[in-house]
């Protein structure tokens, strides 16, 4: 099981990065890990199902805020975390019900607006959320425990995703992505599948939010804007939507670039923009897709057979 | 009118058309026959510069048009009624028809529109509806009408009878015969043998991207080898 091996390996790597790095780099490591967890969820609905879900930052923030609020009511951290995740999954269900009849860009813009409204709530419901400046988060887990949970979540998340991806659920989602009407006509209960994917996706985002809040110590509306949703969406695409490791690669690329490029105000952003475009143009299937295409070409060149007819898609990287 | 010489078309690893040569004269209907995947559609697309040509020279009306892009070919007087109709589903039927006469003056477009409505009466009654709502056969009729809107001197038709009821096939056949009589050159890709018989004087048979037989239609169709191999049991 190379997939499982990879998942465990990534967990270990995540742990080493989180404990080994500090300051700026530590922050980058944290964000990469947190985003990876959130993007694993997104990889279900968007990667496999092809639904551009821009509510992800709202779910992410929902988990962070909700767990912080619940923790302050005196609940044990684990209970607060589970309740927060469950609450966000319920919200995910509602969002999915509302927008499940819409497709493509309609879905994208509907969910994007949902995030915009969630950000409004985070900003304005100051009694609960601390308002625009954010809300300090009490320590529910020790910092060490949080780091272990973060690292473990990456592995568990990837394993779960792999399992979902090779199961019938994964096939059904891929079918929805390819042609939703046709999928219905070969018997796929599309609405139910979409709802389930959206709810799972929201759950992963919420859990990532819980851990992010614990680690960062403060959550603020600016961390959960529709811009973040959009960035997550792009990250998954850049990493390789639908591929097992797409979330990790996408998170590393986007977070790494946004946080580590420091060429002065403006310039970093311009370079970032150019890089986004270049990666998109050069690697249509994301970085992972590009890598495997390159690997294929190298292998073909080495064996002397320029086998250009190979056209895999939706494969698990 | 049309002279295609040594046309070769490849899609990546697949060679769809290999060295096909054919001619079509004004006022006649030239058939292109062949089994599925023989390269008929690709040949028509190649003529109109819509498929990647590896080789081939195309002469139209005495002029070498090999290097022309599709726009220039259309302006020169070539029109294609494509496989699968390809109407613009969200645009009105009338807009679809008008697009067939893209690049002509407003007055011309209006006249031709009126001619089309005269020719296909029911189309006029539904002209404001989105084309995507029509039934398959109705769309096919509109697609043919759209191709006629440019008043082409060379009309390429890719299976115009598909989806049409037998009566409608006869009607379309009559229209096409009219057009040919008026001096247009027609190239007809068709599986409907009855239509081929009715319209075509000569035909080419393609197999695996190559011309394997050509000549007057009655002779071709009576050649049992040809009919068995490429046309199935003829009726």
């Amino acid at each position, binding site marked *: 099981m190379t997939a499982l091996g990879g998942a465990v390996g990534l967990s270990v790597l995540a742990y080493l990065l989180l404990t080994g790095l500090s300051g700026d780099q530590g922050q980058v490591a944290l964000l990469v890990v947190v985003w990876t967890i959130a993007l694993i969820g997104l990889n279900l609905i968007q990667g496999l199902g092809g639904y551009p879900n821009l509510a992800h930052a709202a779910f992410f923030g929902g988990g962070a805020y909700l767990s912080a609020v619940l923790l302050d009511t005196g609940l044990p951290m684990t209970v607060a975390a589970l309740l927060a995740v469950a609450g966000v999954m319920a919200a995910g269900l509602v969002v999915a019900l509302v927008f499940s009849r819409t497709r493509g860009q309609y879905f994208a813009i509907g969910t994007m607006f949902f995030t915009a409204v969630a950000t409004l709530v985070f900003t304005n419901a100051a009694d609960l959320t601390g308002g625009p400046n954010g809300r300090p988060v009490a320590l529910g887990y020790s910092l060490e425990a949080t780091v272990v949970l973060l690292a473990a979540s990456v592995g568990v998340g990837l394993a779960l995703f792999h399992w979902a991806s090779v199961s019938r659920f994964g096939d059904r989602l891929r079918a929805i992505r390819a042609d939703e009407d046709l999928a219905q006509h070969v018997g796929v209960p599309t609405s139910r599948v979409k709802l389930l994917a959206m709810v799972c996706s929201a759950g992963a985002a919420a859990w990532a939010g819980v851990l992010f809040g614990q680690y960062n110590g*403060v959550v603020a509306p600016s961390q959960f804007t529709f811009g973040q949703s959009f960035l997550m969406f792009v990250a998954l695409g850049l990493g390789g939507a639908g591929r097992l490791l797409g979330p990790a690669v996408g998170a590393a690329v986007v977070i790494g670039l946004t946080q580590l490029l420091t060429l002065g105000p403006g310039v970093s952003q311009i370079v970032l923009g150019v890089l986004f475009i270049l990666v998109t143009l050069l690697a249509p299937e994301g970085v992972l897709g590009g890598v495997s295409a390159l690997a294929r070409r190298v292998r073909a060149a080495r064996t002397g057979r320029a086998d250009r007819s190979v056209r895999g898609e939706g494969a698990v990287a | 009118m049309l002279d295609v010489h040594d046309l070769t078309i490849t899609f990546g690893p697949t060679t769809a058309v290999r060295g096909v040569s054919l001619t079509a004269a004004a006022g006649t209907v030239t058939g292109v026959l062949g089994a599925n995947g023989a390269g008929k559609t690709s040949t028509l697309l190649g003529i109109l510069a819509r498929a990647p040509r590896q080789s081939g020279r195309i002469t139209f009306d005495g002029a070498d048009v090999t290097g022309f892009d599709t726009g220039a070919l259309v302006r020169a007087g070539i029109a294609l009624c494509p496989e699968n109709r390809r109407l613009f589903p969200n645009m009105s039927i009338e807009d679809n028809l008008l697009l067939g006469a893209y690049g002509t003056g407003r007055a011309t477009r209006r006249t031709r529109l009126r001619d089309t409505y005269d020719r296909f009466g029911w189309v006029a009654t539904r002209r404001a509806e989105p084309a995507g709502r029509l039934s398959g056969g109705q769309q096919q009729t509109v697609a043919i009408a759209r191709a006629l809107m440019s008043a082409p001197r060379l009309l390429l038709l890719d299976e115009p009878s598909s989806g049409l009821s037998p009566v409608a096939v006869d009607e379309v056949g009559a229209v096409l015969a009219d057009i040919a009589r008026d001096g247009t050159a027609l190239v007809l890709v068709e599986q409907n043998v009855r239509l081929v018989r009715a319209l075509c004087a000569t035909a080419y048979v393609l197999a695996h991207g190559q011309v394997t037989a050509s000549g007057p239609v009655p002779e071709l169709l009576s050649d049992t080898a040809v009919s068995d191999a490429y046309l199935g049991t003829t009726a």
Partner: protein
Amino acid sequence: SPSGSPDSDVVKVGAILSLSGIYATLGPAQKNALQMGVEELNRTGFTVGGRKRTLEISYADDRSDAATTGVTALRELVQSQKVPVIAYGLGSDTYVPQLQRQPVPMVNMLDSSYPGILGLSDHLFLTRGASPTYVPGCLYYAKRKLGTTSISVITAKGEPYGEGLTQLVTKSAQAEGVRIAANSEFPLSSTDYSNAISAAVAAKPDAVYLSSVTAVILPVLKQLRQSGYTGPVIHSAGVNPNQAKAILGAQYDSIMKDNYDCAGTLPTTSQDPAAQAFAKDYQQRYDEYPQDLTMWAHDFPFIVAAAMTKADTVSDPAKIEQALKEIDVPQGTVSGWLPGDGGRLFTDRNARTASEVTAWCPGQDTLRSAMVFDVKDDAVVDPTFPQETCG
């Protein structure tokens, strides 16, 4: 070079400023003033542990987003650069959890948010009078000098400084017996304020109070004037003439007419010669009208030097923090501190300056002092009214 002579040890401290984003009217000016202060300090340097030292500031931009960029910058400064003290502007509450994990004294040069930042953490110091110390002056002045009996308040919702101001204005208005004619809001991110403005003006107030920072209120002010309102406008944004010109455009002079600003004392209107000299230097060097906050920023290096000297360490945050609490008003500072108990700079981590109401001088691109005052127990004390002359 500005960072000292080669034979001195360079001490690095941090500064987290809003160099971009909606608070970008504040950060760059602070950076300018900090730079002036550092250079002045380093001309002579300071001595700690028997060695001559010079100061260097490591600047970070919080992009007006303390919770995300600011916290990251704080971690970076503390964990990687190991700075022993940090100057900063806005976002105090956001830094508290990180301060709990890794304490470091943080000296605030700007944050006036209501009800105050000092209760958030023991590691925070405030070098200025906060909004509760100057907002009561707005209403006091409006009532007595402008004859205001009713006022409409327009608030930027989702902008903490503005939300705090509105609470203070409401409270002070009550205390002064000024009626709040209307209380209208607009979301921070919006670009059209017509609903808030119509509601405020429809109540026919004697004056309008705009609650938020410069970059936010000036466009509102412009639309307010475009909508036909010509009455007095009061705010606590610290608008300077350069900003007014840039953001308001050609009509700025008429738009700024009848504008009153209550905030810290301005270096340009100050009676203190040190402050006046600083104002001149600053204006000459940067071709920009200095805001109140420039004085506090300018003084930060001197405060650090004094604390390090007293603590006899350049690296131990805890000792430096303790020393901050004990130092007197340092030499070379220009802010005009109101000294606390025993001449100390900080009383309960709070250093205060007098507050001021300024008024726009039409046709002169400058501000005049209309009232200088202090506030005790939410009430204005010791008001003085300079001659009403411009320039």
